[in-house]
């Protein structure tokens, strides 16, 4: 199991995370900022998660 954190104060709502892993990330309707729909995704999504971290333009996502 992986553990993800997102920082909504840093997020700029570019949506790259949602495009990369729509089962884990979403954006809220008000401000378009990141929300986690699955904060502990399975190990099998490790690579995609790393890609989401890499593609996030603002550095708002971290994985533990």
């Amino acid at each position, binding site marked *: 199991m992986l553990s993800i954190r997102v920082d909504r104060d840093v997020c700029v709502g*570019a949506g790259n995370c949602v495009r990369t892993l729509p089962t884990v990330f979403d954006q809220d309707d008000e*401000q378009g900022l990141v929300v986690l729909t699955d904060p502990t995704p399975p190990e099998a999504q490790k690579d995609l998660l790393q890609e989401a971290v890499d*593609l996030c*333009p603002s550095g708002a996502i971290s994985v533990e």
Partner: protein
Amino acid sequence: MSTTTDLPRYPFAEPPGQPFGLLSDLDRHRFDGPATKVRLPNGSDAWLITRHADVRAMLRSPAFSADASRPAFPLLRPEPPQRDIDRKGMFIRMDGVDHSRIRRMLTSEFMIKNIRRIEPLIQEAVDNALNDLRDAGPPADLVHHFALPVPSMVICHLLGVPYADHARFQQLSRMLIGLNNPAEEIRTASDELRAYIRSLIDKVRETDPGARGEDLISRLVTERLDTGELDEQEMINIGILLLIAGHETTANMIGLSALLLIQRPEYYAALHENPDLAPGLVEELLRFASIVRSGLPRLAIEDVTIGDVTIRAGEGAIAVLSMANRDAAVFGDGEEFDPYRQAQQHIAFGFGVHQCIGQPLARAELRVALVELARRFPALRLAVAPEELVFRDRAVVFGLTALPVAW
């Protein structure tokens, strides 16, 4: 070592006859590493940052400001001095909380799930434009009948700008983004565009709040302007920014993509056979065309190290997206166009807090446009010799003036 008087001049001239080549051999020769100093049109110097990792680091670093009104900002062309009315609301040139305050009012508008909702509208704009292209030729100009109308119609619809006015605002926005336009004309065009958007806002204000449209300008007037969250100048410039950014870029991308696919018929045929190739193809097209060619200028506001160089507070730097998007460290043979490669690391939409807010919209428009083009015009070809193609001269956004095609 070069002396300060003979620094390479930037922006570079496009290498003639190679629309997808970034540097002439001469300019390539003058490069002395991943970070080179260049001379800008106003006589000042700036660092060119060209490696993918360095560009990402630079665009994410709070040590750089995007505020072009700061003295010593590395402007890519001479610009009229910025007045308050030019700057307010132009969040593409703001930093920190000033920037995020406005960006957050708009982000949800362009989220993937909201763009999905307007896909039928994109499809309709594409269908209509392709009917128009079909009726106009062959031969016919694909830019005029297809590449430009599609994003214009869509952004007009989203914003609540009458599409019937497109000739007027397109001409004005060209003036605002050309690199060679005289400062006075830029100012006149921006005043005219401002008056135009103001008239749209006034029209909304004259309408009873219950009877206003669902478009973005109407909603911003009701939710942000009437409530005092935005003032009128901010609202006007937000409208201008979205209108220009929303159609110039995507239009140029559609035109260049069509050219690229005409010149690589095997990929065009593959798209015709299998529309599911489109998303990957679109990413590679974005990477390879990198239409924001000259890159993104920033001013260092504190000393900062990017890759191998220390950039001092007060020095300018330019993040050259187009060259970073060919970086062999990330893309292998980046000079090769390959729609089957993993191109998603490209930074054609920029990086950091200003990364394109409209990218889900741009991606959807490109995908639908190219899939339908390939489906309905499988035998698309150039109607002129490649040497006769005319490219937009030195604009912030690279593209074709016209693309005469037959089928």
